């Protein structure tokens, strides 16, 4: 169109508007854009359908009672289809955890950071090793608690201390503390 010379061809006669924009170019760009945006918008539902469905999300909070847990004992519960450890710590275990220098930790956090105020002896963590997702030992009676008296993952040898913090082995971070709250003196609601 820009190179149009004096010779009027069939094309220039049909397509050239006064402003130099060809009607056919406009229709072409508009049609391809509409088809492209339309096609791309189909991607959203296609990707989103893979995310957790409503029934999976509906099971995403768990309530449990901590009253029956004796000091030094732990219970295993299920939260989001994954194991959850709830442990009542003894005085000794608390002192051990508090005696550690933060600088010595791979993933620094204090005991107070990992528990709720007023319930400093209740430690709630996921029972999922942060290395590759195995279930650590140490929650049930008689299981290996590892070198630091907390939890021990048998898969690749990660040792967690009494606060569930990673101390030795390949795991990169502490056992995850899920979001939870005390709904009464002893009932907790996780998730």
């Amino acid at each position, binding site marked *: 169109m820009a190179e149009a010379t004096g010779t009027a061809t069939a094309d220039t006669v049909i397509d050239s508007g006064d402003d130099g924009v060809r009607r056919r170019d406009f229709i072409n760009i508009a049609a391809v854009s509409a088809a492209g945006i339309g096609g791309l918008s189909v991607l959203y539902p296609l*990707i989103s359908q*893979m*995310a*957790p*469905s409503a029934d*999976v999300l509906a099971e*995403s909070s768990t309530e449990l009672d901590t009253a029956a847990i004796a000091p030094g004992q732990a219970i*295993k519960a*299920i939260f*989001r*289809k*994954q*194991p959850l450890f709830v442990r009542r710590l003894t005085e000794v275990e608390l002192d051990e955890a508090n005696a550690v220098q933060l600088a010595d930790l791979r993933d620094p956090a204090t005991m107070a950071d990992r528990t709720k105020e007023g319930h400093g002896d209740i430690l709630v963590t996921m*029972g999922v090793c942060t*290395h*590759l*997702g*195995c*279930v650590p030992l140490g929650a049930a009676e008689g299981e290996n608690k590892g070198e630091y008296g907390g939890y021990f993952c*048998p*898969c*690749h*040898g990660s040792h967690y201390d009494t606060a569930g913090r990673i101390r030795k082995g*390949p795991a*990169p971070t502490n056992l995850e503390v899920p979001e939870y709250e005390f709904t009464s003196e002893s009932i907790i609601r996780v998730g």
Partner: protein
Amino acid sequence: MSFSWARQYEPKNGFTQWMDERLPLPRLVYNAVGAGYPVPRNLNYMWNFGVLAGFFLVLQIITGVVLAMHYASDATVAFAKVEHIMRDVNWGWLMRYAHANGASFFFIVIYMHIFRGFFYSSYKAPREMIWLLGVVIFLLMMATAFMGYVLPWGQMSFWGAKVITGLFGAIPLVGEPLQVWLLGGFAPDDAALNRFFSLHFLLPFVIAGVVIMHIWALHIPGSSNPTGVEVKQESDTVPFHPYYTAKDGFGLGVILILFAIMVFFLPNALGHPDNYIEANPLSTPAHIVPEWYFWPFYAILRAFTVDFLFIPAKLMGVIAMFGSILIWFILPWLDRSPVRSGHYRPLFRKFFWFGLIPAMVVLFICGGAPAEEPYVMLSQLATAYYFLHFLVIIPIIGQIEKPKPLPYSITEAVLGSDKKAVKGENATPAV
């Protein structure tokens, strides 16, 4: 395309002539795997494995479709359905054992095929595209095999799925949501099992599609050969049929004997007893290992135990594991030596037999062993050599090596002289 001396297809009767004018399928077969496709005359048995891989792909699709008729991908019944196949379905045990061992044999022949490619540098120009498509097929195979192993919903299925999707969790920022998205939940469950089944059914057909492109790309330059010297004349080739249909048929017979021994006498030898325990999200098996064909890569994954600069050890392992295969994509451009065959490359051959192969064997053994010493240290050494081999040693050898003199032609390599070739030798009487 083909060589100028390739025999032309001639329809022999009224029907084939009628077909040739409407859908020239017989012509396609004749030119692709028949007498119309000239192939180097000196191919050894290492050139059998492409056809064998094709055979096992077909076997997996047939047995897999049959198994799908009796299986249900519901987490509450999947485990029981597999036992139903084993005990109740007529010949179900045969279908399942053939499918499970068929996967192992598919990987055996693919590894031989890749080994052939490494030693004879089959990836070099003008065959880079064949190689690239081959690596794509291998990646698709790994994904398919992994998802298939989850379907019986045993302990190894469940924890394998958890550990492998957990790898994606190592990716910074998007890792966690990505893992939840892949699983459709917070741990492997119904949603994950269903999508794995769907994809496990789909991917073999995607593989078949890429295989067609792989063969198409192969038929442009034609097969390489043990001398690495390109075909120059008619006496360098023989027609694919009957020469290589017969040779491949023999190889197929041998591997089917081995396959039958495994299916009928050692059906569970390559599996894990733990997978006959139903999936339990609250109890991890003491020793999680993937199937044997993933061991070298699993060893690379676990070789990284300390953080590297600002990259956590776990992420480094994931990057290295995927990188160990992705590196094959640039191999045609890392290896600059103009000589193809390892037979004529003295230095390359030393590093191949005494470097790469031992490193792979060490990785294989360590991948199947528990994550303790000395296996961790050995896999670190072998991983270091593996990357060094491809990224440093191969490019340097290409620069400094003095290759042995190449024969002028394939005919000379086989007969001692081009003159000994009988003219028109390949014009064997039509069968």
